[in-house]
């Protein structure tokens, strides 16, 4: 399982009602159902991923996150999750607001564009970073709204979002520096949020 998914489970109590935005192939949703007796739904727009979710017997609903979550009632889920999808949205800040309306708590993970490799690439090549973590060219990338950890913290502050937990994980190496200088050495951020 992807490292950020592995960390998330610690923040999900047993029997939670969860909504997973951009649930992909349903790995996390299935894991939380099996190990935490959670129940809930995944939202996804990719037909191939939806098929895999159906194979797994998951409740997957085809829905475009950019059109909001207006169809879900206030505080109707214990936790609303969104892993590695924030940067693909047209209006990340509005979706974040919606997540905090629909869920009592939220968990968001996203890649850190402030990672030293990205900075180094831009600095030395003068071109948009392409790496193992971000393997797309600027014109065909699904990631249209990159941010750094600092940027995200500023957004949370502006919108009065309370950070319950924050965690930085690295897929490639267990850099000790990531805990000291997360915005430079952290690859993936995991935020546990609620509305303050």
């Amino acid at each position: 399982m992807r490292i950020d998914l592995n960390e998330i489970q610690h923040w999900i109590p047993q029997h939670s009602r969860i909504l997973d935005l951009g649930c992909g192939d349903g790995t996390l949703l299935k894991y939380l159902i099996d190990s935490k007796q959670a129940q809930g739904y995944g939202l996804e727009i990719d037909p191939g991923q939806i098929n895999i979710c159906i194979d797994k017997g998951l409740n997957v609903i085809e829905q475009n996150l950019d059109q909001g979550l207006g169809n879900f009632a206030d505080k109707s889920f214990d936790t609303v999750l969104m892993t590695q999808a924030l940067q693909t949205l047209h209006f990340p800040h509005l979706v974040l607001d919606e997540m905090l309306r629909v869920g009592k708590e939220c968990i968001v993970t996203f890649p850190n564009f402030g990672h030293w490799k990205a900075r180094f690439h831009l600095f030395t090549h003068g071109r948009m970073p392409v790496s193992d973590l971000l393997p797309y060219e600027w014109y065909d990338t699904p990631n249209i709204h990159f941010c750094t950890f600092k940027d995200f913290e500023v957004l949370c502050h502006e919108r009065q979002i309370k950070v319950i937990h924050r965690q930085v994980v690295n897929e490639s190496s267990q850099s000790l520096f990531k805990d000291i200088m997360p915005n430079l050495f952290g690859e993936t951020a995991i935020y546990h949020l609620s509305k303050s």
Partner: protein
Amino acid sequence: MALNNLGGCHGSTGPRSINSATGKAWGADFPMIRVRDWVSSQARLADALGIETWAAVVGGSLGGMQVMRWALQYPQRIRHAIVIASALKLSAQNIAFNEAARKAITSDPHFHDGHYLDHDSLPKNGLAIARMIGHITYLSDYAMGEKFGRDLRSGNFDLGNAEPVEFQIESYLRYQGDSFANTFDANSYLRITKALDYFDLAREYEDDPVIAFKQAHAKFLVISFSTDWRFAPERSHEIVNALVGANKAVTYAEIESKFGHDAFLLPDERYQQVFARYMAGVSV
């Protein structure tokens, strides 16, 4: 198992069947029917066959309405509910098209207030027009354009040409109407469209589909088609949202298709994949 609807004219008892009290066809005296009557008749058939529980009940359009009714009326007898290109209730526009179709039938001089069999006549023109109206609503603008465009079946636009111009689409619709009029019963058509109009899943549940679906035990698969304007994807969203509100298991797929409501009857790779993969998880 697939069966003809009660009140239809291709198998189950309907207006063309003999009323044992009179020895004549029911005709206009055949009672009005509701979607719940179809479901009840199906349940009685299941009883007769000794079928306790269906692994899945599958239906498109008005069949989807029956599936939802099954899930509420006999929650313990259906494990999976597959609702395709359907709606919780018809829109005003849907009812309007149905009424135009019914008016075409009832204003046909051969209709005789529904007692046409007694007069040895058939309201074929009215039935044909009703079918033409219905058929237009099943197709998308794109599908019609692609299939027929402005192609002519006969005649041309040259000056002095006496042969009348006939577009392919006109000929096609006329053919559809005529062949339908020769095989379908007008009283059946009136009853089936009325049953559709009257259907409103949440009516006796405080007009709240969430409360309605709380009765259900089945797992749901809901499918819609992008260009279906008769039972638009928004109608399926209403079904899905109510199921989520009722905390029921539901999977939803919105199939990209150019063929309007008709798409639910046509082969489509993604449609078939979603359906097949879901059904693979239905244990029998």
